[in-house]
């Protein structure tokens, strides 16, 4: 266990060394939040509420969805692809730890760093620019924290899955890019799931993506009742458990057919 905690620490310190990169990151996310803020304001126009969300709910939703993305988002899939292509994965497999577990810990270190140096200050800055509404209810915050941790795990599991496909596809840059676009749309980052037509909602209900962005953002904006929130969080937890299965299966197959050239 110690070695995994150490990995989190090392990744955190590594990120700290390059922290200037993140100041512009906050600016970029603010620009994106701004674009969607104006867009949604125009969409609402004279309307008070759409699907039970007021315009101020929506701007809070957009802001928290992007800033939470800074926490759960990482490029572990791309890192894995690079390590597999370069053959470094052979060395990783000899080392006395679980490769996938280690990748998860690295992602977590990155996430914790960005939580403190990106998401939190970013959220403060954005709340000065746009009219946002924060909940004063402790229960909401607790549920939100729980939900955002689970959304991190769902996202990194999908990243691990994408990363493992490199063993079979060799070049999966296109797949990685496509995955990112699909997640942005179907996780509810761009549009809350409740805005989709009913048939699309029925389909999305059976997919893990909404656990990434939609659930925590809805909890944060108080758009879920406590009951709904608990149910959604349980569903997130179930997805985390389910996703372990395909990852393990693919991982075992990948290790069996792995060929390292040279080295």
């Amino acid at each position, binding site marked *: 266990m110690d070695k995994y905690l150490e990995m989190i620490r090392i990744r955190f310190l590594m990120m700290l060394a390059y922290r200037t990169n993140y100041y512009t990151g906050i600016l970029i996310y603010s620009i994106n939040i701004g674009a969607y803020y104006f867009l949604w*304001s125009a969409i609402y126009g004279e309307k008070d509420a759409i699907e039970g969300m007021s315009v101020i709910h929506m701007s809070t939703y957009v802001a928290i969805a992007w800033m939470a993305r800074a926490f759960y988002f990482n490029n572990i899939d791309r890192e894995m692809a690079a390590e597999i292509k370069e053959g470094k994965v052979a060395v990783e497999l000899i080392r006395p730890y679980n490769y996938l577990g280690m990748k998860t810990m690295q992602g977590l270190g990155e996430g914790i760093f960005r939580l403190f140096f990106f998401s939190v200050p970013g959220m403060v800055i954005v709340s000065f620019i746009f009219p946002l509404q924060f909940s004063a209810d402790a229960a909401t915050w607790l549920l939100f924290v729980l939900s955002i941790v689970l959304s991190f795990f769902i996202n990194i599991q999908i990243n691990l899955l994408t990363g493992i496909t490199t063993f079979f596809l060799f070049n999966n840059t296109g797949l990685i890019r496509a995955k990112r676009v699909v997640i942005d749309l179907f996780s509810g980052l761009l549009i809350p799931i409740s805005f*989709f037509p009913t048939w699309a909602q029925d389909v999305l209900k059976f997919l893990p993506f909404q656990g990434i962005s939609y659930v925590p953002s809805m909890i944060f904006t108080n758009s879920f009742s406590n009951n709904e929130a608990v149910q959604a969080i349980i569903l997130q937890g179930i997805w985390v458990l389910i996703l372990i299965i395909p990852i393990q299966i693919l991982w075992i197959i990948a290790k069996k057919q792995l060929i390292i050239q040279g080295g």
Partner: protein
Amino acid sequence: MFYIKIFFQYVAQYMKTRMQYRADLFVEFISDLLFQAVNLIFILVVFGHTNLLGGWTRDEIIFIYGFFLVPYALFSSFFNIWDFNERYIVKGELDRILTRPIHSLFQMVLERMELESLFGALTGIAVMVYAGMSLGLVISWADPLLFLLFVIGGMLVYGGIFVMIACISFWADARTSIMPMMYNIGNYGRYPVDIYNSVIRFILTWVLPFAFVGVYPAAYFLGKEEWLLYSFLTPVMGIIFFGISILIWNSGVKRYRGAGN
């Protein structure tokens, strides 16, 4: 003449290299298409809840987005200079560029082109035709010519802005993150500028004129009389911005001292 010949020779070489990895090319097409579809889906979903967006109908917004895709596809095929600093300044690749017998910027455009992005223009035209048909737009004899003019204008606006930003590297060595920021600001031009507040509108029109890549030229084909002047400014802005960027580029190249060794 020489430039045109060189251009087609580079295109031929490019095709040969890309055709070596067809599967990869195919996946790239699909992920491009997906990327364009996401924005379209956003518009469709949103208009399930409202009839007008700042006074514009669904099909008008879709038309603007379709138009935007065309100059943007041209831009991303020929102006792949987002890593100019690392690739050309830090690694000193520019030394090699400067020994070539054609203009340095043109040489770089040739080396870095990504013709598969042109596919986005087809998607854009298809989207425009679909939206135009449901709007009942009539095409006059001048429209195809103006379309071409506006598309080139839009591409030059985009190209001009990005070349100018790349030029920063001639004066400041440090890596800047302005490039990715610009890509995000560029997204503002996809929607009618009247939904933004006046400061942002001013910036999108005169400082970083991304509005000339989407909404202004598209407004002409949608018959929006109030934007007529802006529509016809598109090629002018394109020439002005691209012209300035070339001047800055040339004086930057004069300053360039190489990366050592």
